[in-house]
């Protein structure tokens, strides 16, 4: 497992890697000096640094420096919620076919960049190449599975209701709105996919706090999302300390649902209490990866029932 230690280095010092550890993207097979990536937040379709100027040092399993990852603040969380709220109606208003194609596009782009994710997972999660490849492949397949749900879930969750009167009565599941998520702490890429994808199927927008220990795949996934025709702001990624960020999201009045899947190690009872102030829908912590079920997609929906009057002929 990777370890992480907080630093408060300024932008300039963050840019120069410490001499004692190997630069992030060094390839032993080449003597070319590599160009390591700056891991920033993903908010509103852009990649800003944290407004707080803080970063967290991520190291590999042997304790060697890997990257300085932006450490999001309360202000970043609020910016992310604002971006999500702004983007949500457009995403929900897209046709189900369109949303399905975008989610499938994510799988396609992820597939093309799988080597990068395998590499990151090996380094930050200490996985073997085979284990890392397996996780990336599972994540890609999970995006494909969800892509196929967008134009079917309303038929599973909705209904035509035979009421005792002259009405055409229809119930459909609609997205609940803005969903704040604490992603599973294990299997950074797959865990993240298991909570973000089900929220996106019906048209929710997401603010997600990824695994604290292994945040690199989350930012790299942001790069995939940014190039997959997903509208900016539909997914916002806040790397940082879940214990610091989650209470702000749980108490934010413009968040509709709180998915605590990966919050088992936090004081999640307090988070659920905070969420009760605005009656957010809450998904309680689950061990490991969130289950792959249509119920999970429907848990982040609201059933709307419309009664249409039928006239007398």
């Amino acid at each position, binding site marked *: 497992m990777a370890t992480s230690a907080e630093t408060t280095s300024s932008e300039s010092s963050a840019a120069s890697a410490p001499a004692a550890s190997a630069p992030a993207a060094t390839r032993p097979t080449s003597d070319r000096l590599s160009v390591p990536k700056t891991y920033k937040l993903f908010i509103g379709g852009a990649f800003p640094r944290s407004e707080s100027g803080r970063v967290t040092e991520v190291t590999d399993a042997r304790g060697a420096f890997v990257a300085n990852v932006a450490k999001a603040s309360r202000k970043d969380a609020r910016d992310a919620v604002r971006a999500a709220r702004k983007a949500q109606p457009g995403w929900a208003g897209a046709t189900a076919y369109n949303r399905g194609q975008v989610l499938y596009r994510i799988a396609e782009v992820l597939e093309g960049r799988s080597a990068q994710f395998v590499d990151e997972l090996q380094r930050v999660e200490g996985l073997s190449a085979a284990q890392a490849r397996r996780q990336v492949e599972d994540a890609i397949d999970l995006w494909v599975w969800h892509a196929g749900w967008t134009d079917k879930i309303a038929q*599973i*969750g909705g*209904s035509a*209701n*035979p*009421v*005792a*009167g002259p*009405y055409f*009565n229809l*119930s459909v599941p609609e997205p*609940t709105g803005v969903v704040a998520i604490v992603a599973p702490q294990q299997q950074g890429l797959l865990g993240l996919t298991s909570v973000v994808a089900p929220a996106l199927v019906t048209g929710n927008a997401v603010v997600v706090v990824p695994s604290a220990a292994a945040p690199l795949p989350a930012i790299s996934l942001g790069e995939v999302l940014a190039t997959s025709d997903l509208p900016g702001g539909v997914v916002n990624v806040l790397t940082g300390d879940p214990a610091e960020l989650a209470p702000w999201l749980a108490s934010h009045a413009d968040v*509709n649902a709180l998915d605590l899947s990966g919050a088992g190690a936090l004081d*999640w*009872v*307090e988070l*659920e*209490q905070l*969420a*009760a*102030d*605005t*009656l957010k*829908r*809450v998904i309680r912590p689950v061990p490991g990866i969130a289950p792959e079920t249509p*119920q999970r997609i429907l*848990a982040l929906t*609201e*059933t*709307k*029932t*419309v*009664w*249409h*009057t039928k006239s007398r002929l």
Partner: protein
Amino acid sequence: MTFLDYAPAPESTAILDLRPEYGLFIDGEWRAGGGEPFASVSPSTERQIAMFASADEGDVDAAVRAARAAFRDVWGPMSGRDRGKYLFRIARILQERARELAVAESLDNGKPIKETRDADVPLVAQWFFHCAGWADKLDWVGLGANPQPHGVAAQVIPWNFPLLMLAWKVAPALAAGNTVVLKPAETTPLTAMLFADVCEQAGLPAGVVNLVTGAGETGAALVRHPDVDKVAFTGSTAVGREIAKALAGTDKRLTLELGGKGANIVFDDAPLDQAIEGIVDGIFFNQGQVCCAGSRLLVQESVHDVVMERLKERMATLRVGDPLDKNTDVGAINSSAQLERITRLVETGIAEGGEAWSAPCELPSEGYWFAPTVVTGVEASSTIAREEIFGPVLSVLTFRTPDEAIAKANNTPYGLSAGIWSDKGSRVLAVADRLRAGVVWTNTFNKFDPASPFGGYKESGYGREGGRQGMQAYLKGGE
């Protein structure tokens, strides 16, 4: 007499055979409560109907134990088919005793007999009949094969539809295989006591339905009881919030049906005759004491004047008075506390610039009454456009474009109901799509059916009651 004057036509209370006092119904037996007994009064006369036991923590514990034992030994192991047959029996007995229940409900709640007779009680029987059929078909509610009940359900219901809310809670819970402990509202416990009698007539096994009367503390003790698996609450958003907090971190599942500030949107191409009736039904049905009431009228500017003129004309013909009179349209407010709240909010509305108009009607000297009232010139930021009044008071706002109507309709922390009045089908569908409300009525209002899921968005709560979705709330994996 003018053509609008009606001779009194009171429904007789002779059909009732009430006891002077009622106990708690626990494990199939009537027993005294540990708390101080309380009276329920008729809101139209302020006269006492009967005394009711108050359940303390010990009584709540006894009720939960009885429900647990019945779940473990009788109701849980029973086949779905037999559970369903008990519920069908209950539905039939409710139909047989419909008149008695309607009279009792009018007496205790203050709502017109016309409503209890034609809406509340028929829906109660229909709810049990509908859910009865689900009991042996749970494989098809959408949760996979053989879904399991939660166990013991704690249910707390409000005073606005006492018996109907009991049916919404008890029928799906029992059909799914749960046993229940239900607390009726403090001001309207009567029909729940009659329902205990119905359960006995149906031969329902002891402990499957337990009824604990009392005030807020009784409800608080019930939802917090450690051996409760599922909590269902209908009532105020404030109490719903407290319950959600109290249940945080537990394994209990929760569904909440809370307040609302429903928008009733009238477009310039609305069928006006129907719209006027719908506006009246939306806000004066049950004296406006309805969580899904159409309490904000959003009327397109171009038809504002004609709508208001015709609405006032119609309101002037509403007959306010004796709930047991078969000609009564608007009955009594449920309690003095509620009347005080309505009065205070209307005063606030006027102080904030609204112009109030009340139907000219003579209010009885005894009891709790509020004349049907409409407040015009209300701003989106006004208190009476934001806070739930829960009374016969309509706040009127105007709009120019569909986008403005939608923005104003959604500009509330609530999201329970909405109405749309327009003869243009494509517009109705487009507007319904964009309203953030759990129930949308188009060219109608305040319609309910056990096959039709009901429940809110946002701070109006979560979970649905009615239909397949409503059944899921009482089964594992369905929340």
